[in-house]
């Protein structure tokens, strides 16, 4: 599979996406997640290893996320087939003396854990798993019932506001630059008293630096395509006041419902598309591959 920038979209099968924050997946637990329409079960063994598998038991198609983690294994709730962390079935309770067939294996996806998240790649990864951004802490995961492209446009053009009770700063002037070294775009928004520098680092990863009343703060936004028409936003920042960051995120999501902003977003989305270098157009078009 090629990682040619000309075919990049927001939903590459060769890219890594965060699916759950490390702190939200404790030892001995599991979580059902959706990545680009695929249903996955993400689980962490008692020893701490995280895995992501198709949420479908190879035996009779039951969702494994209804099962249970037991030490280093995941157990299906239907017939109790027990899968080791390499996804091979190691125990079929109906036949305690029989070694399970090698075909009895759950579908495994490349999984990595870095920087406060569990990352999953649905295909053949084209790059090493994401590395740590020192100083940033995963704050929370928020589900948006907006198309992924609108959420990208929103984070790239509207700064988060840490203070309550202020109107959203809509961009008045946007200045685009293109980074020479590969698929990323820098963008600047200037409102009356706010500014935003947002950079598209990799599919699904936006680095933002916002200024408000002379004060700067930065944050990372990682986007997880879920079902079509919605996405999950994993947000991280270096500050210690996660409560105000958290509130800012929720306000941000609520503000996207305002009709005025929704229509602005449509324009921004088109503009982003227009202004993107040709080889990046797919980043914003973002149709599933």
């Amino acid at each position, binding site marked *: 599979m090629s990682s040619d920038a000309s075919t990049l979209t927001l939903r590459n099968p060769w890219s890594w996406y965060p699916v759950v924050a490390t702190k939200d997946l404790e030892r001995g637990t599991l979580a059902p997640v959706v990545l680009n329409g695929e249903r996955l079960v993400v689980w962490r063994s008692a020893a701490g290893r995280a895995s992501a598998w198709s949420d479908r038991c190879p035996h009779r198609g039951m969702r494994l996320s209804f099962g249970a983690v037991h030490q280093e294994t995941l157990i299906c709730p*239907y017939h109790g087939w027990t899968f080791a962390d390499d996804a091979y079935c190691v125990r079929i309770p109906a036949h305690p003396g029989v070694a399970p067939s090698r075909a009895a294996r759950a579908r495994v996806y490349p999984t990595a854990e870095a920087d406060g998240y569990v990352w999953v790649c649905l295909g053949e990864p084209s790059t090493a798993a994401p590395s740590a951004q020192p100083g940033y802490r995963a704050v929370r995961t928020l589900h948006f019932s907006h198309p992924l492209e609108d959420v990208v446009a929103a984070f790239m053009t509207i700064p988060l506001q840490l203070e309550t009770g202020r109107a959203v700063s809509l961009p008045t002037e946007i200045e685009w630059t293109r980074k020479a070294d590969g698929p990323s775009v820098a963008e600047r928004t200037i409102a009356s008293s706010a500014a935003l520098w947002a950079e598209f680092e990799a599919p699904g990863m936006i680095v933002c630096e916002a200024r408000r009343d002379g004060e700067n703060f930065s944050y990372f936004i990682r986007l997880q395509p879920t079902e079509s028409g919605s996405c999950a936003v994993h947000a991280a920042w270096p500050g210690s006041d996660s409560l105000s960051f958290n509130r800012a995120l929720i306000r941000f999501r609520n503000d996207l419902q305002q009709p005025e902003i929704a229509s602005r977003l449509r324009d921004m989305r088109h503009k982003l598309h227009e202004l993107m270098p040709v080889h990046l157009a797919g980043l914003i078009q973002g149709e599933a591959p």
Partner: protein
Amino acid sequence: MTRTTDLVALNDWYVVAFTSEIPKGHSETTVLLGQSLVIYRGWDGEFQCALAHGDGHPPPLVRQKYGFLWVSLGRPDHDIVSVPEFSEHERRFIHRGRIGVPSSGQRVIENFFDLSHFSFVHTGTLGGYESAEVPKYSVEFREQERELWAVGCSFVQPKASAAAGAASTIYYDYRIPSPFISIIYKDSLVRPGRKDLIGLFIQPHDEESCTVHSFALVHDEQNVSTHILHFYHEIFAQDRSILLHQTPKKLPVSPRREIPTISDASSIAYRRWLDRSGLQFGLDRASA
């Protein structure tokens, strides 16, 4: 919803109602194989069934048997399944109601004759964690391959039925006389040597949803029907929570789609038998 064009499915008989639930002079609408139907019961007690949207198809055939109303949308080349135990009067007949399931009828049938889920899905009643092993049983075709049987099944059950007081090994035979019907013949706990029957008549609405009409013919004079029904509903709710979360909802026929084990001999035979029958409806025929 569109009516299936699958002749194998159309030429079979299906239960669409329990006759005493429709009062004289009343009508009811329902869906079978994607076809909307209007059932009407006249003042003489007789039933009529008409297509809600005619579209030039022949009128459905209607019969009453075993207390149920049976319909065929096609030209069946065989009679409604024969269950002689309905006319033996030693057992008590219990109508176990109808329950909707958002899955294919075949997934429901396969779950019904599956022994290896008892310990995990019906823990404490039909199975226990300590005794999950499934003893060998055999699979047979009878009536010129018209019927599939799994015979000599046995399982250690903590509470095998509403009448059970203690754990015991229960012996079963499963009969699958049509893709959408299964009947269990189970040792009576009350009358040793005699069999209790529990049966499912599936009414497939479309390929991924159905109604399960169910009955029991039991040797149980002790328990009132509500007690027996309560036991059944508890069991069925547990099965339903599995059926809701299986994918695909249609039953895969290729052996490479889902990996079986020894205790799945009946499931393997059921899938092959459905495959050979030429049935398309409710089956997932993707190869991998």
